[in-house]
């Protein structure tokens, strides 16, 4: 296998002009990601992007977003109707072929445009048995929250404590939607919105864009002092029907973690959009007490759908590139109740 490293990560700032298009968010984000390592669009051998037309309700939106990558003369590119983390997976595979050294990965989303994301995401369900139930992602998450609290003996207080910690950590992250000092009692004073889940337990759907540059082989060392070498990358999926799963555990996250070599990571950035999902994932990935979880604040402080997972991988890479860590993990998820999970493990080498 060819050694591939993440050498740069950039995100679009929260503060955007009114009506900003995804293409306009992506242009400076991609320029910054490449510029961080002295590269331009001409240096890219393969481009892969992630997005979902259902978020904006328009068809083929990702085609115009390609203009942000500079698609003339024609470029070698691909797209996944998924979180950008899966675009990163495809780009990593492409780098294994040996003829491409530099890959650009980007993703964007305007999750705030749906009348209600809970309604839009019903489209991910089987139309025969699941969609007609109208079981939205928050209601299903509440079922999973019940299941994991029952299995572990943890409570709503524990969930609120997770949120308090993440919002405090998010004060240091200019890309987090919500940050600040809160108390568990303040949070618990609000009424639940579904099951035990309160509004603070659910990452708000927001607009966003991010880009990552990956470089294969020794060239990564020429461009970056401390590349985040991808030592493991794997993704797995659980059954589609929540009814046939034990929602308190995540076999797909566990298997992806094992295959990616998650043991011993110092930092884990988890795409837990709901607070209880951190409990399920920490358990599945075997994260020890010494592992720092979501120092960026994670996804419960802001959910730029389609970017959330890629941003976790980017944050994990930054922990290696900029924060001196030796082993970090970025996680991405898709589907209801953590149905699909991707784990990326990055290492620093001296």
């Amino acid at each position: 296998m060819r050694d591939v490293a993440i050498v740069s990560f950039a995100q679009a700032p929260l503060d955007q002009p009114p009506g900003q298009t995804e293409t306009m968010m992506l242009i400076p984000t991609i320029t910054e990601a490449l510029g961080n390592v002295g590269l331009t669009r001409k240096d890219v051998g393969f481009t892969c992007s992630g997005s979902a037309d259902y978020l904006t309700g328009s068809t083929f939106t990702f085609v115009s977003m390609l203009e942000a990558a500079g698609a003339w003369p024609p470029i070698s590119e691909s797209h996944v109707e998924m979180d950008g983390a899966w675009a990163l997976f495809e780009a990593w595979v492409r780098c294994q072929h040996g003829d491409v050294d530099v890959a650009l990965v980007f993703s964007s989303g305007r999750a705030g445009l749906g009348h209600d994301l809970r309604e839009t995401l019903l489209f991910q369900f089987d139309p025969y048995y699941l969609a007609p139930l109208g079981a939205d992602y928050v209601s299903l998450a509440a079922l999973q929250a019940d299941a994991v609290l029952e299995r572990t003996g943890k409570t709503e207080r524990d969930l609120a404590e997770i949120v308090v910690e993440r919002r405090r950590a998010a004060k240091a992250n200019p890309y987090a939607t919500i940050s600040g000092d809160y108390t568990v009692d303040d949070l618990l004073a609000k009424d639940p919105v579904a099951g035990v889940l309160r509004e603070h337990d659910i990452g708000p759907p927001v607009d966003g864009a991010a880009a990552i540059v990956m470089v294969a082989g020794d060239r990564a060392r020429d461009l970056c002092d401390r590349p985040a070498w991808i030592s493991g990358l794997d993704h797995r999926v659980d059954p589609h029907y929540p009814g046939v799963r034990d929602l308190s555990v995540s076999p797909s996250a566990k298997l992806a973690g094992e295959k990616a070599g998650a043991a011993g990571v110092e930092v884990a950035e988890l795409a837990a959009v709901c607070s209880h999902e951190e409990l399920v994932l920490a358990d599945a990935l075997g994260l020890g007490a010494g592992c720092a979880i979501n120092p960026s604040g994670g996804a419960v402080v802001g959910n730029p759908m389609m970017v959330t997972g890629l941003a976790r991988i980017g944050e994990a890479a930054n922990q290696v590139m900029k924060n001196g860590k030796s082993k970090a993990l970025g996680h991405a998820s898709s589907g209801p109740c953590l149905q699909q999970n991707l784990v990326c493990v990055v290492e620093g080498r001296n």
Partner: protein
Amino acid sequence: MTREPVQFMSHHTKVEYKLPAPSLLSIESAKQLAAGRVVGHKCPECGKVYVPARGYCPLCVIETTAAHEVEVQPRGIVTTFSVITPLQYQGQEEHDDYAQATILLAGTDSTISMQRLDGIPIDDVRTGMRVEAVWLPESERSASPEGAARGFGLGRAITGWKLTGEPDAPVEEYGEHIL
């Protein structure tokens, strides 16, 4: 009493979306159109002119702003067209066959598509036709950027395009822009 296995199931769905807040660029374009001006942006690097303006040059991948605004005449050449027989699906508003044209406006490097033709029988529609805009009366033009998708952004003020009466353009004049 035996029943046939279910082969088809109707699955009617509806989902609502909010229109995105209009961009500053579309607000400006709408104001100009209501005043009878067709404007675009000229890329400072390659010099190409795009109508409607996108806020960036897709070839150079640099931002363009109001500083790069240029006005173009509302006249051009039909580069290609389709004759559409509207499928009568639920919600369809069109009933008769109609032609939809793509037009290269004079002085621009990008085409505008989904334009209607005014007073031209379908059988007479051809590429190379020289056309000019048919404007709504000033009082009926909308300065609102909503409905911006209509007519490639021009539908709030221009309802269609009519023949200028000049001879057709030779293909060399527009051949590079046929999609």
